[in-house]
């Protein structure tokens, strides 16, 4: 086990965003999180990332496991440039050389390094910056919320290559998606949520995705 949700739930007043849910993520696997809009996928990913506190239950992670998280709505400072965002979060993540880390990710994700602030980037470039930020600190587990939305085919390809690299390095990836091809092409396991409840956890072949 590299990451586990043990009976985690999240409520907003009387509304239940996620009923108590158990999910285990093993090292070396890629898990697809599927379900209709409002099923609780983003909530589960945020809980696994530690960005939300569960109303009940707990999230456990293997000792020393670092987690990278790319939320569905990009999370960075709009008035900082992509480089400044990457350097700031690299420092907060404890990167040994924040400038080098930022330079590497700018190159990998083909992000502009022109002094333009991030808030003025195109939708696609914002998503790339969002994904680049998730890779800071060399995480063993990547939690990606609809990561390929707004990416061009070339960028998608490079994203899946990064996912494969994490898996081969003994890490794990959990990604939320509505795209069945991505599930079929990249997931080892599928977790399906409906109305805030886990309704399926198994191999993609056994899942009723529609």
């Amino acid at each position, binding site marked *: 086990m590299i990451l586990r949700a043990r009976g985690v739930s999240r409520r907003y007043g009387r509304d239940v965003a996620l009923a108590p849910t158990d999910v285990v993520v093993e090292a070396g696997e890629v898990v697809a999180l599927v379900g209709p809009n409002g099923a609780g996928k983003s909530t589960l990913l945020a809980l696994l990332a530690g960005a939300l506190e569960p109303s009940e239950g707990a999230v456990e992670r293997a000792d020393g496991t670092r987690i990278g998280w790319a939320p569905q709505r990009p999370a*960075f400072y709009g008035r900082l440039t992509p480089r400044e965002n990457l350097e*700031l979060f690299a420092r907060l993540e404890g990167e040994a050389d924040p400038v080098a880390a930022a330079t590497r990710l700018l190159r990998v994700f083909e992000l502009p390094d022109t002094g333009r602030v991030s808030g003025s980037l195109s939708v696609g470039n914002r998503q790339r910056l969002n994904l680049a930020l998730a890779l800071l600190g060399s995480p063993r587990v990547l939690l990606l919320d609809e990561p390929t939305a707004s990416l061009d085919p070339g960028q998608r390809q490079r994203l899946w290559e990064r996912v494969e690299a994490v898996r081969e390095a003994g890490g794990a990836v959990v990604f939320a998606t509505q795209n069945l091809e991505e599930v079929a092409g990249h997931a080892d396991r599928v977790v399906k949520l409906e109305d805030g409840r886990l309704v399926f956890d198994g191999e993609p072949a056994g899942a009723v995705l529609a």
Partner: protein
Amino acid sequence: MRVLLLLRKDLRILRRSPALAAVLVAYPLVIAGLVGLVAGYASSKPRVALVDEDHLPARVVVGGQSFDVNRTIARVSRNVRFVRLSPGEAARELRTGKVVATVTVPPGFVADLQAMVRSPRLILETTHGGITPRVTQQVQALVYSLNRELQSVYIAANLRYVELILHGGPGSFLGRKFQVLGLDRTDRLLRGLPPGKRVSRIRDFVGDARLALAQTGAALRATANPIELVRAPDRGRTWALSAEVQAYALALTISFLTLVLAAGSLAAERDENVVARLARGLVGLGELVSAKVALAAAVALVVGLAIALAFGVIIQVSGVTGGEPWVRLPLLGVGLVLAGASLGALGALLGAVAREARTASLVALLVVLPVVFLGLVPREIVPAAGVVSDALPFAHAVRFFSSSLYDARPWAPVAREAAWLAGLGVAFGVAARLGARRLLV
């Protein structure tokens, strides 16, 4: 370290927000300008109409001393500017506010003055506005100065009669001339008489009278001014109005800026969806609140010192009494940091409660007005307002700034207000930290 990273980020973002940066630069300049205008107004002479119904001559002789009327008025009217107007013009200008008061010299004024039998009267009429008490005070001060000038003349005139009794010679009273023997010559005449018990008693009386009358001058002057107020040359509070105005201007400006800035910038972390990224172990919510408090303190220091400098320049150029206490700026800086931090913590609390940057800024603006007004209400008049105001940083900031700039011995009040500001800052900071959990929802 992480707080410093966030502070540096916030300052960079602040620099890149042109509208906000412009407001931050313009605001202190506007406030300093307004304060300067108020200070200038405070030191300016209000225009007062002088209505001369007695047709004052160029010179008036009182008690044998000649007065140049215009020069005397100019000398005693240090705080008002007199303009001679007819009764009709004066009434019109008073109505329209061109003059703030009229002083009428009624018929018979000079005659009463010269007769020294009854007090002549001046008639004061003022507008019914906020300035009335000040104008009344200034005209009263003018009459006081005029009375002092006349008093010395009256005393001199009385002393001349005393001298006449002492030494003898020609005299006059109400236009009637006469010769006075005088005590000196009486004594000489008595010496020429054959000695005897009665002559000896008269000579004793003459001697006592000469001795007593010789002290009359000092005694008259002493009874004319039983108590004289002498202002000690001290480095204390120099100019009460400018001190209060500057303290309020500083507190008002940093209250607006820090509350809005701290509230808006904390809520903006949620608006940009960054707070969730930070909160997953990168930065604690306490550190996030601390960064906003530090941001408010830094902005308060820079903007506050800019206002103090601008205000100080205006004070110096205007030649205001006492000038700007430049050596107190470091102490003022400490107060600005403490007040900025305390207000920043309150702003962070508002930001945490409001959660959205626009709402937070609006809430901060709505909150700052009652906070400021409560601080302006004198606690002697409304004790309840004083109690509520004590629980907010504004009034403490005003008292800290006022003491640090103008009190001769500021340490006790400054220490007390610093403790208040620090305590309130911690209390609001803890509340903001607890409230910041709402940002993650």
